[in-house]
């Protein structure tokens, strides 16, 4: 299935989807060294975002979150791509400085945990494999 979306940060990324039912604050809720969700009140507590296509509503919290995303990428612990329902500056800037493909406003929200997803950010397209 092909879904249209808006390019935020360019590039191509693929991987298994990790779908967060809640917004994510990279500063505080994600372990800076491992990419594991470390806030026990977050529904994804204990899951690793490394190498996954991270699907979430939006970012929130401190603008330092952008640097956390950069650090995760440096350590190879960042998502391979990010899909937000609505981009906000913290995650968008993080994706730009970390060179992570990112899109927002997908025309349909059909993503489920474990779907294999290809994100063609430059073309504004998401492919969900059955």
């Amino acid at each position: 299935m092909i879904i249209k979306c808006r390019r935020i940060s360019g590039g191509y990324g693929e991987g298994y989807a990790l779908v967060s039912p809640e917004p994510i604050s990279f500063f505080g809720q994600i372990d800076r060294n491992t990419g594991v969700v470390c806030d026990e009140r977050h529904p994804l507590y204990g899951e690793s975002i490394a190498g996954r296509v991270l699907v979430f509503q939006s970012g929130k919290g401190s603008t330092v979150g952008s640097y956390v995303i950069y650090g995760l990428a440096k350590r190879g612990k960042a998502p391979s791509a990010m899909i937000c329902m609505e981009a906000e500056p913290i995650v968008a800037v993080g994706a730009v400085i970390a060179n992570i493909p990112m899109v927002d406003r997908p025309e349909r929200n059909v993503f489920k945990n474990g779907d294999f997803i290809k994100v063609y950010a430059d073309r504004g397209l998401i492919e969900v494999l059955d």
Partner: protein
Amino acid sequence: MYLTGEEERILKGEEGYAKQKAMEILTVLGDIYGADRLIPVSSAQIAGVSYTSLGDEGIEWLESLQDCRVVVPAMLNPASIDLENWREMGISYEYACKQLRIIDAYRRLGVKPICSCTPYLVGLVPRFGEHVAWSESSAICYANSVLGARTNREGGPSALASAIVGKTPDYGYHLDENRKATVLIDVNVELETLSDYSAMGYWVGRTVGLGVPYFRGLKPRFSEELKALGAGLGTAGSIALYHVEGVTPEYYEALNGQVEKLNFTDRDLREVYCEYFKPVDESVELAAMGCPHMSLMELEEAAKLLKNRRVKRGCKLWLFTSIAVKRLAERCGFLKTIREAGGEVYVDCCMALAPLKSLGIRNVAVDSAKAAFYTRLLTRVNVFFGDFKSCIYSITEGQ
């Protein structure tokens, strides 16, 4: 968003990696917020300075950007230590080295190593109508409201990107239509101290959240009071601009049409002192003032209060300001009086970012609602809120 030929070239990387990344940040923000173009800024004030918040990732990012220089005057937000007198604060060598590495990375980019939340008191003074890219929330309020300059609430990376490119996307508070009042605050209480202004700002920020408050019935005597008000407004809410009837430069065209109306009374003021925060008591070990950084007049007040008093054994008095104002206070003799009473004046830094817990400090009195909010949140010590005099009196003895 429309880009000029030159902007397109920068975005393609023809002027190097750092400029390309900076342009990418600005265009992405412009697209998210629906800006139609970039506009020039005359200065930048950059957050993302303290090692406590930036971490090693932030250092890596800054050090990766070394193939360019900023093109407009740029200063920094406070760090977590006094860049010169960190040993006196009890900061470890390892921590100080990390912090100084951050400052050096900014310095190599051409950013002035002046770390203050009051850039408008130390030489970064935009004139009416000028567009800037600032990121310290109280300074943003001051620039927009008191000076009539125009800035959005920038994050650290976007303010740095604006400094490198010299531009910002044209949206939000840069546009006339977003500078109108959205809520009218009728002030029905006589505000006496800077902490009263700070408390009211906090209450309004918390109540309004996002918007442009218009204050009626407010009679500020000093610009320091507006500095304190803006700091409160930017803390509990996302407020970047306010108007004061008869006082701030854009008030006369700020009210048009129906806006929501709120009353601010003595009861609301007391609520901030006694319910949002804890009132100052005898357990205080550290009184920390200067959020935002103290002006020369505030340091003069401190010196007057401390003339015949001494800091009690086991207690500390820390006053925070910018390097320039500290030098002025030294020339005027205020610094000597404060030190003779056992107090210390630190520069470049912020009490809420200082590693207080590792210094063995548990109970801190502050006279700023912003400091009360962030110090509790970031350092996990007990925080008490009171006016300047009661903070000073809680840790000193004498007449």
